[in-house]
C-alpha cells in the first residue's frame, strides 16, 4: 500500500527552483533515508509533505488524500526547529500533545523522558538546545502514527543519545508504519534504512533499496552518497 505519494511536485521561491518535478512513492512498512546536502531540497520536500508550504505545481497525497486534518492525524513530524513557546514546562507539552493527538501515548512519552533523564517539571527555556530536541523527538515518537517524518533528528545530539534515539525509533516503530528520516549524517543511520532517496539541487537523483545499492556498488551508502554528489 502506498502511504505517501508525490506527483510532479515542484516548489519555486520567486525564480529559485527549490524542488523540481519530484515523483516519489513510499509504501508502508519502510524506513527511508532522505539524503542530500544542505540546501538540496530535503527540508522543502518535507515541508511540502507536511502542508507547511504550498506547492507551485503538483501534489502530495498521504494515504491517497491531500494534506489536511486526516493526513495530520496519521503523520508525526519532527521539524528541525524547536517549536514550543519557551516559557512552558515539559509537562505542559505532553498535555498539549494529548489534547490534540488521539494517537499520543502518554505512558510511552513519560518512560522515554525518564530514560533520557529529562525532567517533566523543567521549563523549555531552561533547557539546552539538545535537550529541547530530545523532548520533541520523544513527543513525536510517542505517537502511534502511520508515517513518521524526522527532519535531521541527529543534528545536535551526542553519540550516546544518538544510539538511544535509533533504538527508540526501532523499538517504537510498528511494521505497518513508515519512517522518513532526513540527514546528512548518513553513516550513523544507514544500517537501519530500507530505502535511500538521494536528493540534489531539488531533484531526486536516486531512489533504491539500501542493500541493493551496497550490492551494486560494493560499498557503504555514505561512500555512494559522496561519490554520486561529486559526479553530479
Amino acid at each position: 500500500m502506498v502511504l505517501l505519494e508525490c506527483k510532479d511536485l515542484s516548489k519555486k521561491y520567486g525564480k529559485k527552483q527549490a524542488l523540481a518535478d519530484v515523483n516519489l512513492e513510499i509504501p508502508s512498512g519502510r524506513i527511508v533515508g532522505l539524503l542530500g546536502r544542505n540546501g538540496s531540497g530535503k527540508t522543502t520536500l518535507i515541508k511540502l509533505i507536511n502542508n507547511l508550504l504550498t506547492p507551485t505545481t503538483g501534489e502530495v497525497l498521504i494515504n491517497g488524500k491531500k494534506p489536511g486534518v486526516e493526513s495530520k492525524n496519521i503523520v508525526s513530524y519532527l521539524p528541525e526547529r524547536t517549536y514550543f513557546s519557551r516559557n512552558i514546562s515539559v509537562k505542559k507539552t505532553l498535555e498539549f500533545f494529548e489534547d490534540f493527538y488521539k494517537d499520543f501515548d502518554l505512558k510511552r512519552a513519560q518512560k522515554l523522558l525518564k530514560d533520557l533523564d529529562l525532567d517533566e517539571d523543567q521549563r523549555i527555556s531552561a533547557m539546552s538546545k539538545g535537550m529541547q530536541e530530545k523532548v520533541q523527538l520523544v513527543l513525536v515518537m510517542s505517537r502511534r502514527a502511520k508515517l513518521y517524518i524526522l527532519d535531521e533528528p541527529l543534528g545536535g545530539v551526542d553519540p550516546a543519545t544518538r544510539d538511544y534515539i535509533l533504538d527508540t525509533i526501532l523499538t517504537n516503530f510498528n511494521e505497518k508504519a513508515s519512517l522518513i528520516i532526513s540527514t546528512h549524517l548518513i553513516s550513523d543511520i544507514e544500517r537501519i534504512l530500507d530505502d535511500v532517496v538521494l536528493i540534489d539541487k531539488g531533484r531526486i537523483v536516486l531512489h533504491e533499496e539500501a542493500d541493493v545499492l551496497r550490492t551494486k556498488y560494493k560499498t557503504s551508502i555514505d561512500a555512494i552518497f559522496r561519490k554520486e554528489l561529486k559526479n553530479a
Partner: protein
Amino acid sequence: MNTIENNSPVYLQIAEKLATQIFGGKLGPGAQLSSVREIALSERVNPNTVQKALGELERDGLILSRSTNGKFVTEDVELIMRRREEYAERLTKSYEKKMKDVGAEITMPKIMWLTDEQLDVLTKPEKNKERRKWFF
C-alpha cells in the same frame, strides 16, 4: 564477526551472523530463534532487514518457520554440516584470495572440525566452569 558494517549488504551480514551461530552450536538444531524485533534491536538494524536475512537462511534450509511459533533452526543435522562445510570453504577461499593479493601463496588447509564436546567448552565456558565446581 561482531559488528555490522556499512559497506556490504546488511541483510547478508545478519544472515551470516546467524548462520555462524548455528554452525558454532550456539543455536543448536531445533532451537528457537529470537523474534525479528529482538534481533533488529540487538543488532540495531531495521526489522525488514532481519526479515530478509531470515528469508535468506530459510532458502538455505537452515531455519524453518512454524506458522505461529516463530522460526526454528532445522533439525536436519546433516544439512547443517553440509552448509557449514560450504561456508568454511568460502571463508578459506576468501582468505586464500586475500593472501594472494599480498603476494602469498598458501595451500588449502585441512579443516579439522571440533567435536561437540570441544565446542561445548568453547561456546559455553561459564556452564563448564559451573560443572567443574560441582565436581570438586
